[in-house]
């Protein structure tokens, strides 16, 4: 246990100090993108991984987060720190409606309904003039510093994204270890058995969804503060919903660090293919990206962590077999 703690602390120091080593702005930006993708992947994992409800509409929460803090800032001058909290709270409350309309559905039906909800929210924001309509909103660049979360340089965004990721991971650990975590695992694997021993399935799915929505919305607020520009097409897109679930699935669905691993791999691939092939403007990067998604889904259904575990298990079984062979007379 002490060894794990030491490794964890060392890793923390390394990631905290990374922006002093990586000074190239585009590389630093890649790191920030990885952290942000990891954070929403971890948030998605709460409902998609631990509760087993595959949502393909989480961009709704991300966009609502981005729009809530931005609208409060632009229309009422509210500080983005408070705006972020308000964004999380708004998304958590709206997740009640999301859950109410989707939770009686299972499997594919649930997934399709979540797509429909997100699409609906996007249509509303695209046509809502108060919120900038299809044009979107531009955030003012009139402050610089931690008080208003606007920075001229990239490094603070790195630490901000890192803190948010650690916060989301901490929340996941708390859920994992609490009775909620056990109930979620029960309702994911054996919904009928869970119900028969008296677990209110819908209630615990709802708790997982509200937490997931809260942290997804914080991610959306951070995006708005970093980009200083949001529009419906960028924060409500289906592609974004897919990305959140994809990082979790690629890394290992329902595992603590799976989404982080998935985000590192996926974001790197995405940016690399874009840098190498994106210049042609013909979508070569998209083709490679999609081919990888298919390959992962077909060959590694349990994600990279799952693949690693089964590889280790096989190796152990092999060495155990070797030992027993040697022991045999």
């Amino acid at each position, binding site marked *: 246990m002490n060894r794990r703690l030491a490794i964890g602390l060392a890793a923390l120091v390394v990631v905290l100090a990374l922006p002093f080593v990586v000074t190239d702005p585009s590389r630093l930006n890649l790191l920030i993108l990885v952290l942000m993708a990891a954070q929403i992947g971890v948030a998605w994992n709460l409902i998609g991984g631990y509760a087993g409800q595959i949502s393909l509409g989480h961009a709704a929460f991300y966009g609502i987060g981005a729009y809530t803090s931005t609208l409060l800032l632009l229309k009422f001058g509210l500080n983005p720190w408070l705006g972020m909290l308000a964004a999380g709270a708004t998304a958590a409350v709206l997740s009640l409606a999301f859950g109410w309309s989707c939770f*009686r559905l299972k499997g594919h039906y649930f*997934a399709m309904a979540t797509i429909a909800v997100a699409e609906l929210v996007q249509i509303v924001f695209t*046509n809502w003039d108060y919120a900038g309509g299809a044009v979107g909103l531009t955030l003012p660049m009139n402050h610089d510093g931690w008080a208003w979360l606007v920075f001229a340089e990239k490094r603070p965004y790195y630490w901000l994204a890192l803190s948010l990721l650690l916060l989301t991971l901490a929340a996941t650990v708390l859920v994992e270890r609490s009775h909620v975590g056990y109930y979620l695992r029960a309702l994911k694997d054996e919904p009928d058995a869970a119900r028969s021993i008296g677990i209110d399935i819908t209630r615990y799915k709802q708790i997982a969804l509200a937490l997931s929505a809260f942290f997804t919305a914080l991610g959306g607020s951070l995006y708005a503060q970093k980009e200083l520009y949001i529009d419906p097409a960028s924060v409500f897109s289906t592609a974004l919903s897919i990305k959140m679930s994809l990082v979790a699935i690629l890394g290992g669905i329902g595992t603590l660090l799976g989404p982080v691993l998935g985000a590192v791999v996926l974001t790197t691939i995405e940016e690399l293919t874009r840098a190498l092939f994106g210049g042609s403007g013909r*979508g070569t990067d*998209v083709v490679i990206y999609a081919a990888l*998604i298919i390959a992962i889904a*077909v060959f590694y259904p349990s994600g990279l962590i799952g693949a690693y575990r089964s590889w280790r298990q096989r190796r152990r079984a092999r060495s155990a077999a070797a030992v027993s062979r040697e022991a045999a007379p």
Partner: protein
Amino acid sequence: MTAEILLQTLASGMLIGLIYALVAIGLTMIFGVMNIVNFAHGEFMMLGMYSSFWLFALFALDPMLTLPLTVLMLFTFGVLLYRFVIRRITDAPMVSQIFTTFGLMILLRGVAQFLWKPDFRSIENSWVSGTVRLGEIQLGRPQIVAGIGAIAVTLAVYTFLHGTKWGSALEATAADKEAAQLMGIDAHKMFALAWGIGAACAGAAGALLSTFFPIFPDVGANFILLAFVVVNLGGFGSIGGAFWAGILVGVIEVVGGLLLGPQYKMAVVLVVFLGVLMFRPQGLRGKA
């Protein structure tokens, strides 16, 4: 005057709804037979549109003339896709099934953009261009021909399913895979057939649509959402259900657009969809 507008709207809604039905029939067949939701279904339709477009642009062959060829190409494509990709995930967890077909969707869009550029294209002056006056209302001839074509293809699929040995085998596999296998039906052959027919239906819809709808790599995006709605309303796996639900969705869409403005027509369809999912998850016709 208002009655005319309403009549006109209803008629055009029904005609486009027949196309939605045709796209959805392929989707519902694949789902019914092997419990996989094909997110790339709109892209099959897109491929059908491009097939019509290129045969028209390069060889001056009319989309109506090349319809059988397009259907055949998409059928082959569907079978090959099953053979080389989908077959591997028949028993995989739902997540990997969703992401395989989702990846296919992005892949096909990317390939279309790579090969044919993201430009909007259209087929001008095909055999069926122009309008037709029917009493008080005026309808585009391409739309009418597409509607009739969609009915014809739907009937052909229906007849195949209910009147041939292969069709019965397919239905048997959909009803109970294990029992069908015990009767000597090769499930993999049936799955391949379902993908072939499913893709062919979407391809036919694309060909029929190509004479009056812009052709571009992302054209499938809206159609797949509409097809989901249709399939859910009609009941998953039901061809007849998809047919009537398709017409209904077409009508809801145009009436919603007429009442609230065209930017909200999709929203109206989605609200109806969610409402039905909540109160009748088994579809409008299904039994509880």
